[in-house]
């Protein structure tokens, strides 16, 4: 039984009306288009994709942080038996911070710049755990200590701008784990950080999952981070999962042309020098709606006319549990996959 079970989640942003001159901005935008995945306790599930693929919107929808006006959310997201998406504001507010927690990409803009760190950490302890005064302060100090912030008593009195980027992200993690949440959503938690600091934060998250059995939903664009951390990976493109597999299976046999192309276009530290990169042509802007066919078709090297007739379904062409949304997947017999030279 999984802790979180997301079923056909969709998020549509309404346009600004359909009057004369409304143009592109006037049309509704489907940011997430039927995404399903499960997260079990102690499991790390990755949502991977490039900008605009809907990974952050998915997280915001689960946390109930999308604006109510102009946004329609569909599907179900069962957390411990209750549907997060249809839950009332008051109810989800009780869950948020205590059972569900989120870490954002930019630690500076997720902290209040005019309130000391200590007040921001104790706020959660007071709201969800009823701790007050000295007890709350002590608990806050021990939380900061736990995430490796030296001299926590002094840091509690400081403001966000006085902390370094890595330190701020640790403070956010401290706030996120303050009530021992059962599900932690991390939206690009290390993208704004330097690589040695990124290594520190990733180890910290790993330890949290190992020791506390927290379920972690990791949202990132970095396939390297995914390879080291996630158990199960969902690759998103234009609002839909195009490939879902265990991490070893995915990296050994990327089967959707997009996942395959993505892995071919990353410079690897351990690759022999001179090995050319195989980029995916075009950019995500020239997308077509999933309803009319495969949204990746205009950039795909393997596309056929079949790709433009109806929405491709998730199938398991290679191994059980390895789902791929493609009518013409990259399979072992497909030698052209390795020989494909892409002109940029």
């Amino acid at each position: 039984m999984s802790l979180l079970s997301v079923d056909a989640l969709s998020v549509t942003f309404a346009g600004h009306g359909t009057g004369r001159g409304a143009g592109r901005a006037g049309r509704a935008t489907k940011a997430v288009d039927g995404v399903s995945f499960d997260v079990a306790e102690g499991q790390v599930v990755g949502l991977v994709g490039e900008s605009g693929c809907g990974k952050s919107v998915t997280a915001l929808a689960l946390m109930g942080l999308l604006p109510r006006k102009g946004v329609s959310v569909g599907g179900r997201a069962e957390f411990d038996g209750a549907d997060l998406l249809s839950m009332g504001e008051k109810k989800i507010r009780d869950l948020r911070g205590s059972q569900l927690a989120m870490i954002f990409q930019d630690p500076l803009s997720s902290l209040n710049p005019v309130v000391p760190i200590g007040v921001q950490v104790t706020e959660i302890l007071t709201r969800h755990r009823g701790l007050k005064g000295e007890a709350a302060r002590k608990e806050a100090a021990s939380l900061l200590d736990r995430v490796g912030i030296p001299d926590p008593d002094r840091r509690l009195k400081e403001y966000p701008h006085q902390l370094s980027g890595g330190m701020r992200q640790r403070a956010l993690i401290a706030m996120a784990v303050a009530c021992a949440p059962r599900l932690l959503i991390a939206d690009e938690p290390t993208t704004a950080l330097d690589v040695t600091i990124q290594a520190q934060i990733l180890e910290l998250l790993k330890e949290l999952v190992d020791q506390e059995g927290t379920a972690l939903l990791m949202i990132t664009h970095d396939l390297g981070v995914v390879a080291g951390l996630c158990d199960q990976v969902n690759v998103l493109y234009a609002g839909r999962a195009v490939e879902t597999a265990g991490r070893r299976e995915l990296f050994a046999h990327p089967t959707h042309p997009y996942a395959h192309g993505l892995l071919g276009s990353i410079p690897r530290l351990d690759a022999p020098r001179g090995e050319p990169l195989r980029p995916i042509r075009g950019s995500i802007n020239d997308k077509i709606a999933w309803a009319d066919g495969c949204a990746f078709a205009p950039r795909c090297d393997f596309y056929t006319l079949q790709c433009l007739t109806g929405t491709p379904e998730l199938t398991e062409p290679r191994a059980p549990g390895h789902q791929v949304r493609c009518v013409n997947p990259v399979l072992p017999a497909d030698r052209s996959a390795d020989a494909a030279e892409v002109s940029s």
Partner: protein
Amino acid sequence: MSLLELDGVKVHFPVKKGVFFDRTVGHVYAVDGVSLKVEAGQTYGLVGESGCGKTTLGRAVLRLVDITGGEVVFDGTDLAKLPDEEMRKIRHRLQMVFQDPLGSLNPRQNIESILSEGMAAHGIGADQEERRTRIKKILAEVGLPANALSRYPHEFSGGQRQRIGIARALVLEPDVIICDEPVSALDVSIQAQVINLLEELQESKGLTYLVIAHDLAVVRHISDVIGVMYLGSLVEEATSDALYAGPRHPYTKALMSAVPVPDPDVEDRRERILLHGDLPSPASPPAGCRFHTRCPWKQETRCATERPELTVVADGHRVACHFAAEIEAGTVERTRATGIEAVTDTAPEEQ
């Protein structure tokens, strides 16, 4: 003779205080004595984390910031001492590609205007007609349609904007292009397109690149020689392959071990060297070796008192560490934890 030689380059920014009189109360030692050579037709990659001075160094080569000391010798001329007007004239031979493609293009100029402005300033092309012909040729080379000429920056995607930035450098027929984080603002699938483009252009035009980036995998892919910077100075320099095969400086070791590789087998096997704490402030860098406050191999002697010089340890491989040979031979022990304890242990460090 190398095309571009930096010798002891320093860039110090004064820190001022006071309402009526600006008193200089200290300096930020952004770049503090960097010497390196960039060979013609090659790519030199500078890597380091934010605040290590790599961008400032790149800007100093073009004299976009004032150089406090040292020499920047380009093709036999010391740029650091060149009068401003002479510097302006030589600048078309040294061009720059910036990180943020939207921020570095004027939103109110169309592409033709952006690209021809530099040409007019440097007297390239007799008239606008000739310049337009040349711009069209360059646009085709960077993979942009000819109808881009009359369009504005906002009409292009991120990858296309970076191509415009590259075209802007190319129209001036430069010898050296300094690329400051050329792909870090782009999505991974677009990154590869731009990296390949830079490599193709280097081959067809014989360009020399100084690539500044924080992403070690990108730098390793594109560079012939790599220099690793930490807090204003070079700590290690080697050919791309030698650096990957055997990093000698403790900081390089930690940096390389921290770069995620998209391969679960590699990720599971490797030992991460985690560092204690954060980068110290470049306004008050630690005495002695600047890395000693975080170094896992810090020794009792020398590290805290004596600043190591870059010394040659193998052909073309320079390292600034007192104990590089001993660490390599395994005769000195780690003095700090490098596992998860490095992250969670908050015991105060002795300075």
